[in-house]
């Protein structure tokens, strides 16, 4: 179906189902229960899951396939955001032109940076991309203030021309009138599920991006990219020019980043320079590796994982911990709270860093490899074969146990 092999079709369908029902699946706890703070099914966070999923899928096309480690991909995300906001300022609040422009501008920008950076490989390539991204970040903060509005960030205002919008047009980003922040909340017993326009727009675009990524991975072009990673010398002596292949991968991943940036701006019409900082580039590296570089579902998994950590895990405070360990005798309770506290709440970065190191050391294939190992153990026990990558995909929606 859709030009995909059976297992890829299955993977796509499973991801589609999970994404469609995410508002329900991610809200497993009743709204008034003490566990409600672990519900991730609110539009703002779900949008981040899928948008950063797109960003990581794109990054993986470059790093996972060709092995070129870019430390500057956030620049394309930032450029995408700025373009989208400008489109909404000048033309229309409809998000379609905004998103289209962000992809195009990020694509052009990545042609430029990729053409120069890909003249070198290894760490030199990483440093070149880092240098370009830091340059963009510094310029956005200083001389380019007329375009970027410096530290305040670029925003939409009532005075913007918006030549295509009539008098009655919505003043918030919309899709032919449906505003991104419109949402319906369904109550179901103690549970509440919110379905928003913005999330579903992002979800559809993410599914398209994911589908295209599968096509690229399975295409002859994808094979060539893996060959670049494996042996450039043999590529050259097989009559293949590696430069256009790597540049094409770089530009595709830059366009994915631009798309993610455009979507971020469409959900919340604001673009700031901090989106381009190298820490943001580092984050997409973390996502991709954590999930599993070079696998299809890995980057999406990693993006969801890190965003969940950032938004949910970080909210665990001392009182929550005390609640969990309340069944223990006082002294022991305090001991456990004291041991665990540095790793949760504001210390979530510490846990993330440790986890990341563990993955690099013991699980180079990331969470997907972990899932595959568990899958294998499972298969050995009973003969039911289950696709390992798929089982990893299902894990994605289960809130991390840690």
């Amino acid at each position, binding site marked *: 179906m859709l030009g995909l092999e059976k297992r890829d079709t299955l993977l796509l369908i499973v991801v589609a189902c999970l994404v469609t029902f995410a508002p329900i699946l991610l809200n497993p706890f009743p709204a008034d229960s003490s566990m409600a703070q672990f519900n991730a099914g609110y539009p703002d966070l779900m949008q981040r899951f899928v948008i950063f999923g797109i960003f990581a899928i794109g990054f993986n096309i470059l790093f996972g396939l060709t092995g070129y480690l870019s430390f500057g991909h956030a620049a394309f995300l930032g450029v995408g955001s700025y373009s989208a906001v400008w489109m909404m300022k000048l033309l229309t609040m409809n998000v379609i032109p905004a998103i289209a422009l962000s992809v195009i501008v990020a694509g052009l920008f990545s042609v430029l940076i990729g053409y120069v950076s890909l003249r070198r490989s290894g760490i030199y390539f990483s*440093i070149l991309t880092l240098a370009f991204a830091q340059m963009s970040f510094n310029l956005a903060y200083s001389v380019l203030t007329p375009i970027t509005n410096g530290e305040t960030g670029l925003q939409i205002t009532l005075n913007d021309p918006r030549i295509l919008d009539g008098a009655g047009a919505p003043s918030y980003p919309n899709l032919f009138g449906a505003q991104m922040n419109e949402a319906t909340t369904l109550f179901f017993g103690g549970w509440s599920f919110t379905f928003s326009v913005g999330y579903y727009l992002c979800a559809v675009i993410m599914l398209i991006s994911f589908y295209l990524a599968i096509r690229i991975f399975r295409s002859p072009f994808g094979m060539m990219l893996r060959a670049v990673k494996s042996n450039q010398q043999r590529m050259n002596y097989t009559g293949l020019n590696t430069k256009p292949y790597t540049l094409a991968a770089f530009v595709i991943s830059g366009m994915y980043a631009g798309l993610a940036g455009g979507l971020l701006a469409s959900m919340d019409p604001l673009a700031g320079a901090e989106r381009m900082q190298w820490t943001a580039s580092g984050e997409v590296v973390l996502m991709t590796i954590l999930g599993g570089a070079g696998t299809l579902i890995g980057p999406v998994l990693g993006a969801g994982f890190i965003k969940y950590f950032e938004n949910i895990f970080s909210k665990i405070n001392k009182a929550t911990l005390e609640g969990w360990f309340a069944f223990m005798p006082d002294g022991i309770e305090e001991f456990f709270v004291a041991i665990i506290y540095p790793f949760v709440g504001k210390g979530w970065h510490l846990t993330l860093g440790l986890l*990341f190191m563990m993955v690099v050391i013991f699980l180079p294939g990331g969470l997907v490899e972990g899932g595959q190992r568990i899958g294998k153990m499972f298969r050995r026990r009973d003969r039911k074969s289950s696709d390992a990558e798929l089982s990893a995909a299902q894990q994605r929606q289960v809130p991390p146990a840690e």
Partner: protein
Amino acid sequence: MDAILLQLLNGLDKGSAYALIALGLTLIFGTLGVVNFAHGAIFMIGSFCAVTLSKIFALSHKAAEPSGKDFLGNPKYDDVLYITEWFGEDIGNWMIDWSVPLAILFAIPIMLLIGYIMERGLIKHFYKRPHADQILVTFGLAIVLQEVIKYFYGANPIPTASPEALRGSFDFGVLIGFEPNAIIYPVWRLVYFAFSALIIGAVFAFLQFTTFGMVVRAGMADRETVGLLGINIDKRFTIMFGIAAAVAGLAGVMYAPINSPNYHMGMDFLVLSFVVVVVGGMGSLPGAVLAGFLLGIVESFASMNEIKAIIPGIDQIIIYVVAIVILLTRPRGLMGRKGVMEE
């Protein structure tokens, strides 16, 4: 003329910090072949050694003041510093004043230990792994280290003073025949520059004139052959890692008065130091030092108003522009060897 000289001086102190960090990075890369993204975190820990020592010196206990009673008639308590109690008022206060330079002694064993643990516990297992893996695992370690520091010291910068005698400015211009007040320069920055020069000189002398250094240099050039000679090169490389950590740590200790230590300063410096190392040429020690000072000076010149008037924003990006130009025109940096890190 005096303005140019002033910028030159301004460039030197930043350049010395770059050069010291880049020197350590290059030592690690050249000897062990490992790209260490946690090196900036070591610099940051060095700075926090200075903070810690001054905190230790400030430890006190309450002691009843024999004469005084407060207005309710209760005995009055005073904070008594342990350090003045143990060493006497004069020496104690002097130690508090000079806590940053004293922290050098405090930091050396700590940094060597951290370096040793890092190498034996983690880096050792990554010699045979691809450079991308090394970058990633040390990047993870850097996050962990900075979060640990953040947990203990908080997120805010902690101002740390230099000794009183070395505070204030110094009229450098008069010395070389300019008008008074033409070139005013903070004393501590001169100290920092001198200190860096000393450390850099010591590292080079160590590598040049000791047998140990000779073996390490030979190992940098050709590890296998040296290994075949029956020399335990790995053990020496471990020590080298410790030395590199100490160099970065000391750079951090002395930098504390210039830049109030905060948990993310390591990452900020790391990005620039990597640019420095790459510009100098991966694996070249003189290249790292040269590029460090060069970029420091270039950066300070670019921040002159006269230059900013011609090219707005140049001060923000000049380092990266230089890095890009050098990488594209001299692919292996200023003094790098062929074929390093380009697999």
